[in-house]
Structures are given as C-alpha cells and as structure tokens.
C-alpha cells in the first residue's frame, strides 16, 4: 500500500491585515502625538487641578531645576517666518557686545530646547558639535544682581514679541527664595501675569458638614 504523501509546505500566515492594523496605529500616533522636548535638566513639575493647556506660541518659558539653575526658552512666534528666536539672541548679544554670525543665529533658531548658557559662552555652545560638551555648558543663566542676564533675556523677548506671556516651569523641590527672585526679576520688567506649568491631578472635595 502506498504511503499517503502529506504536502511538506510550511503553514503560511497572511500578514496583510496585521500590516493594515499597524499602519493605522502608526498614523494615529503620528497625528495625535507631539514630540516631547528634551529638557536640559530634569524638572518634576508640581501638580494642580488646572486644566488649561499651555499656549502653542507667544510663550516664553523660564525653567528652573532643583539645583537652582535657570533656563530660558521662547518659541518662534505664530509664524516661523517671524524668526523671533534669532532676533532675541541678536538683541541679547548686542547688550553684551557680542556679535553673532548668521550661521550661529540659524543654529539658535533650530535649537528649540531651553537654553541655560551664560551669554559669554553662547558662541562656544552653538558651535559645539558634541552633545556632551553642550550639556556641560548648560550651567544656567546668571540671575544675580551683579550679572542679571535673565533680566536681559526677558526684556529682549518682550521687545521683539510684545504679545509674549511668561510661563514658569519649575521643579517642585526648588527652594522658594529662588522662585521669589525669579518672580521679582519678572515683576521688575512689568510682567505680572504668570502661567505656572503643572501636571494635572484630579481632586475631589468632600464637604463633610451636612447640608
């Protein structure tokens, strides 16, 4: 009796629906997500019940980390053609008699994370190729009364973009006197309205006394 010859082919799973599914997921993630900006220092923002989202533009952010370093960030404005970032750097440079080349200004425009470099080191920072070297230069913007560069940044930002709003993004463990100092600097420049960047935490309040 002859043996029944079974076909010796491998089972073949059709992957096409899986590819379809993954494409849809991929498109979904691409459209819904925004890129997470890398902060030069770890910042754990405090929690609040506020549900207002951060504005997309006209927003200058002052970031302070728990080791009392201060960083500054500003967006390019509602239209990238406005090129607020290079203009602000130019303005700050002028006040410290530092001339930036167009190439350096272009680099600053593209570099969209917070800047924590004293203005004297800015050229070195912008021309550095090595990311670790850049990180070493992020020593924070000086903000003491002798060398108050933060003030100049705020002033220039408001000159170039009058519609700018101030946001404070700080680590919850920062000591209060640092915060007070930053608030004072901003108030000296007539910035009295602040947005504090926080993470959302829902809170339910129970009114214990009977109504």
């Amino acid at each position: 009796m002859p043996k029944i010859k079974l076909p010796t082919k491998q089972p073949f799973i059709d992957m096409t629906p899986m590819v379809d599914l993954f494409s849809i997921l991929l498109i979904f993630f691409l459209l819904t997500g925004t890129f997470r900006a890398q902060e030069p220092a770890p910042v754990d923002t405090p929690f609040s019940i506020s549900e207002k989202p951060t504005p997309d533009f006209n927003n200058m952010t002052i970031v302070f980390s728990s080791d009392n370093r201060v960083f500054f960030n500003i967006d390019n404005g509602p239209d990238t053609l406005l090129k607020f970032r290079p203009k602000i750097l130019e303005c700050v440079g002028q006040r410290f008699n530092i001339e930036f080349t167009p190439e350096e200004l272009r680099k600053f425009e593209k570099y969209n994370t917070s800047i924590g470099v004293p203005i004297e080191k800015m050229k070195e920072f912008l021309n550095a190729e090595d990311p670790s070297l850049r990180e070493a230069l992020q020593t924070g913007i000086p903000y003491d009364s002798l060398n108050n560069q933060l003030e100049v940044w705020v002033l220039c930002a408001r000159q170039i973009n009058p519609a700018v709003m101030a946001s404070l993004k700080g680590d919850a463990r920062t000591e209060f006197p640092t915060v007070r100092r930053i608030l004072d600097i901003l108030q000296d420049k007539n910035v009295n309205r602040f947005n504090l960047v926080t993470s959302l935490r829902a809170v339910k309040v129970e009114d214990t006394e009977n109504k």
Partner: protein
Amino acid sequence: MADIGGAQETGKKGGKKRRPGRRGVVRVDMTPMVDLMCLLITFFMLTTAFSKPKIMEIVLPEKIKKEKEKEEAPKIAKSRTLNVILGPENKVLWYTGAVDDPKNPPPLQVTDFSPTGIRALLLERNRALFRKIEQFNNDVISGKIKMPLDSIEAAVTRLKKEDDTGPIVLIKAYKTSNYGNFVDILDEMSIVGIARYAIVDINWIEEQMVEKTLGITPGSAQ
C-alpha cells in the same frame, strides 16, 4: 486563488506535467514589514507626549515703586485675615488676625497638605462661597441655568467678587519651603474657591514664630 503552494494538482491532463508554483498570484511575505511597523510604533509611542502640560494662571499685583504710593496699601479686616505660612518639610502653619504685639505673637497651628489638613480648614472658613459655586456648577450641569460655556468662568468670578464673608488668605513662604508647596497652596485656593488671597513676603516676626513653633535654630535653617 491566492494559494500557489505545492498543493496544486499536477499533470492530470495529458502528458505535460506542470511544475507547481509557476502561475497565479505572487504572495509577498509581509513579516519584515510587520517588524518594521512594530519598531516605528514603539518609537513614536516613546518619543511623543500625548498630554500637553497644563498651566495655572496667577496674577501678582504690580510692584509699588514710588514712595508716595506706598501709603495706599489696602486695608483689610483683621477678623477675616487668615495667615498661611509655608514651612519646611511640607508643613503649613497658620494663624488668624495679625501680630499686634511682637513680644507676644499669636500661637501658630501646624498642619499639612492632606485633605484633612489645610483644605479642611479653608473649606470650613469658605463654606458659604464654596457651596454657592458648587450649586452654580450643578445648576449648569443639570441645565437649570443656561449660559454659553465661555461665560461660566466669568460668572464664577462674579460670585467670588460678591462674596464678603470668606477669609482673606495671606500666603507667606518661609525660606526653606519649596516651589511645590507654593503651587500646592495656590491650588488649594482654587480647589476651595477662595475669593481673596495674596502672596505676601514673610516678615521677621513670623520667621521667628515659625522657628519657635517647629524648634528650628535660625542658624541651622539654611
């Protein structure tokens, strides 16, 4: 059919034998594509942020720069004043009224940021307004009051403005308190719906009161 594997019948008609798998639809192996998709999705999931960070608005009063204007500091009723001092290690200290006699300051009460701590205290003092706001919000949700969404916030602000029984909270920060405490106390203000609060610089009498209550020696506080 899509299947062109070896299962096709071979050479039934006549003498010519057809080799299997020559004709028909070519099947493309999709597995590497699935691998790639998986990698891309993982990458995007890890690098994107879905929830935008939230903001809490605060408006500070303008700084008084001229000496002449300094005399016009607003006067507030002592009985409604609640002084909240942010202390070290997430402690909150409070007293009512004002310091009349620096040699004999009012006792400080120590509490914390838990729901039974400072929130319970603020809620008790601000219950009338809190209920009003809650009632208003419920009415909006249940449809008793009909108003456009963008004017709800303004209506709540009006309720707060009309209130004249709730406490006036003066927030002061001791030097070793941190930014998290500061945001927490502002958050408590909005949770409980306090109508009037201000951020005030701490004075030396209050600093001493904190040090005395918590048993800190002034030199070691830094």
